[in-house]
């Protein structure tokens, strides 16, 4: 596990925020507003990189392309292929959870996010995305208490900052 401060990341996040301010985003799905944006904001560029296999990286990029094009099935299919190669890659598992969230398959979104948390760093941005996804999914599954617990857990992801930071 490597911890890196990416200044470029901070700049990008800031640019993104500026961009959000001036122009409303095309898609305002809750996966962006309630999972990705807050997690990214909180972590403010703190990234926990796991070593990603080049093939997995390629498939993830293809999935991103498919998601941007609005083809969630195709995105899911790329991620499934990536999971065949690295079944416990926390980033791919979380990404799959976010795709499931957009497809309104809340139970599977929850399951993939939990799996990602179990095999992930349990800290930092991905941790926050894990718990935020879990929270949103539980909300849709009518588990209000569970949702607020998960919200609580998401806020703790940044408390235990790695020693190197």
């Amino acid at each position, binding site marked *: 596990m490597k911890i890196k401060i990416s200044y470029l990341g901070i700049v990008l996040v800031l640019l993104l925020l500026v961009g959000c301010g001036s122009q409303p985003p095309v898609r305002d799905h809750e996966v962006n507003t309630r999972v990705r944006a807050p997690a990214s904001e909180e972590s403010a560029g703190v990234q926990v990189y796991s070593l990603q*296999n*080049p*093939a997995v990286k*390629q*498939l993830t990029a293809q999935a991103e392309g498919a998601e941007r094009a609005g083809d969630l099935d*195709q995105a*899911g*299919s*790329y991620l*499934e*292929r990536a*999971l*065949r*190669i690295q*079944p*416990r890659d926390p980033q791919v598992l979380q990404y799959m959870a976010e795709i499931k969230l957009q497809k309104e398959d809340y139970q*599977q979104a929850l*399951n*993939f996010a*939990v*799996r990602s*948390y*179990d*095999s992930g760093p*349990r800290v930092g941005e991905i941790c926050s995305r894990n718990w935020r996804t879990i929270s949103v999914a539980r909300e849709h599954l009518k588990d209000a208490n569970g949702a607020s617990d998960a919200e609580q857990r998401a806020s703790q992801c940044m408390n235990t900052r790695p020693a190197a930071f």
Partner: protein
Amino acid sequence: MASKVKKTRAKRRKTTQKKTAKQKPGILRRLFRLAMLLVGLGIGLGVPWVIWLDMQVRDEFEGRIWDVPSRVYARPLSLYTGKALSKESLLAELRAAGYRKTSQASAPGSYSVSGNRFDIHRRAFAFDDGSAPETRFLLNLSGGSISSISDVSGSGDSGLVRLDPAEIASIYPLHDEDRTLVALTDVPGLLVTGLQAVEDRQFKHHHGVALRSIARAFVANLKAGRAVQGGSTLTQQLVKNYFLSSERTLVRKANEAIMALLLELHYDKAHILEAYINEIFLGQQGKHAIHGFGRASEFYFDRPLQDLEPQQIALLVGMVRGASLYNPRRNPQRARQRRDQVLDIFATTGLMSAGEIKTAKAQPLGVTEKPRSGGSRYPAFLDLVRRQLRRDYRASDLRSEGLRIFTTLAPSEQEYAQLAVSNGLKELQQRGLPDDLQSALVLADVASGEVRALVGDRVAGRNYFNRALDARRQIGSVIKPLVYLLALEHVDDYNLITPVKDEPISLRQPDGSLWSPANYDHKSHGEVPLMEALIRSYNQATVQVGLNVGVANLIRKIRQLGVNAEIPAVPATLLGAVELTPIEVTQMFQSLAAGGYSVPLRSVTAVLTPHGELLSRYPLRLMPLEHRDAIAVLNFALTQVVEQGTARSLHGLLGNDTLIAGKTGTTNERRDSWFVGYTRDRVAVSWVGRDDNRPAGVTGGNAAMRVWAGLFRNLPFEPFDLRMPDGVNFVWVDIPQQALTDPSCSGAVQIPFIEGSEPGRSTKCLQKQDRKNRKSLWRKWFEDKN
């Protein structure tokens, strides 16, 4: 409606009769009325009847879609830098996918290899998630994995390349038989003409029924005083085959004739003949019927239809009249007579010259001693594919023409699995075990549940009994991990070091008899830590723990893990007096191997129509179980079964000491031997025993584990991962003291505990220990004790 018509007609007839009595009309008029009556009846009853028959026969004919069967593909092999892959495996995958080795891979579907450097020219292929153009790439292997993969100019990493998958079979998903389909253009000319010469000389001219042949047969039969000749056309025979029944009634015959006429109306001669050649019944192997000349050619001669010699073709043509009567293996003399008779017909119809006939007749029958099973090389796996298709898809979808079915089979791994079984049993025989042992082996991916290999018989390609799917056998000690899992879920009562009693125990069975299980070594071991009872597979301790957790809960647990078999609620269930199939056991342990993320085992990933539309995909669905913390702790204990318990000889068999979780199983009187083993990425279950369930002298350690090791010796795999989920921590403890301790203390052992289940007190060191000894302490503790 028909009955209404009938009534009106009957009424009319009555009035007519009255009139007749009075007026006595002419004979012609009476005949005319009778004819009208018959026509009316014919239309009223006959038309719906014919429409019904038409539906039946067309449904059958089109349901088989004999010209476009469904193609079944193996999983495509993904190639990327860093992927673990041996040269042998890559060669096996290329071979299975039909790649030709050439000096330079200039054409798609070819490759060249020098040393560890491959030049592969991939074909264009429509994968289930999109098409890929043909491409040529260079691949280097080193140290058991892909060290580089680049496009043919050698510049830059190609990233991920998928090999087009092996086509493993053509099937009709709704039918059980394995068929080897042949296109009419590939059928030897002598078979096409010979069939007509022997069975139906008017084939080209009739419309489904040949009155002349019927008349000829009638005369011949009358002369002989019994049925010696049939007047059925090839079309009638085809219809008869669709609705196989030995019933010989007139109504049946009439139905067949009508359906034959209807078939001829809808389809041309070439289609009908092709269907006939692929459909006709030519033998029986166990519960599987041998249909079609392509399959029969393999079954009797072990060669493709195109390679048959004239006398072999004559034999098969002769068998059309009675596949069992002229069975060349069972009735060689009769078969030979029939063959020569057919050859004579070939001669009289000018299909062969007198000289050729003489040579042909001098040849022996030429059938192989034992039938080659399955037309496919992977009949056992295809069995699973068929069952899952029928379970998960609508029959109407499966009936459509030319589906493309994408499966999870890894051809190289299937090859290794079959070798592991075949060679493993041979080796056991040499070690003095019985020569009629059988075995089954299932290999799946842990996280996806995708079945990579499935072996159901010691003989490759034979599949009259698929033991991997159908052999229900007692699982013995393989059940024990579940008993201990239930215990570990009770955080307040159990952890891995909780002392449990291994002492004689007697229980009243539901039938009133007394059950007193003994240990394998016929000793009781007194009070032992829970983990020791598991890794040494103590029966008496397991029953003690099992009675605490409850048999009903154990059965519920088995269900949760995805198994739906009948399980008796008796104490003996605690020791595995439960009959499960190898695939069910694999399902059970997939859930554990994946840390509680259960997925249904699957062999099919997607089904596409010929136009590339997705019928449906099986998406990866996770089903997390509760108590994943207990599963993680149990998995640690199961790695210790291999490190120092009943499976400790596994490392020797594998030739390495990679961390593996496993469990052996043996049943009463050594009838069954089981081994379940899993790594981070793979789970496999092997079974060895006798089909008739007699004592076989096998134990989990001496038989099934050898088969398992035979497979894993050839597979790349990742060591089992001991990373614990949230809420489970490794803690240093002193086992005899049942207390927390300092890592530096003598006797300190590091073991995972679910938070809250750790010992409540600490102990002080009596003696400090050497730092370098710490790692192997758990082992040391065992060694000191024994």
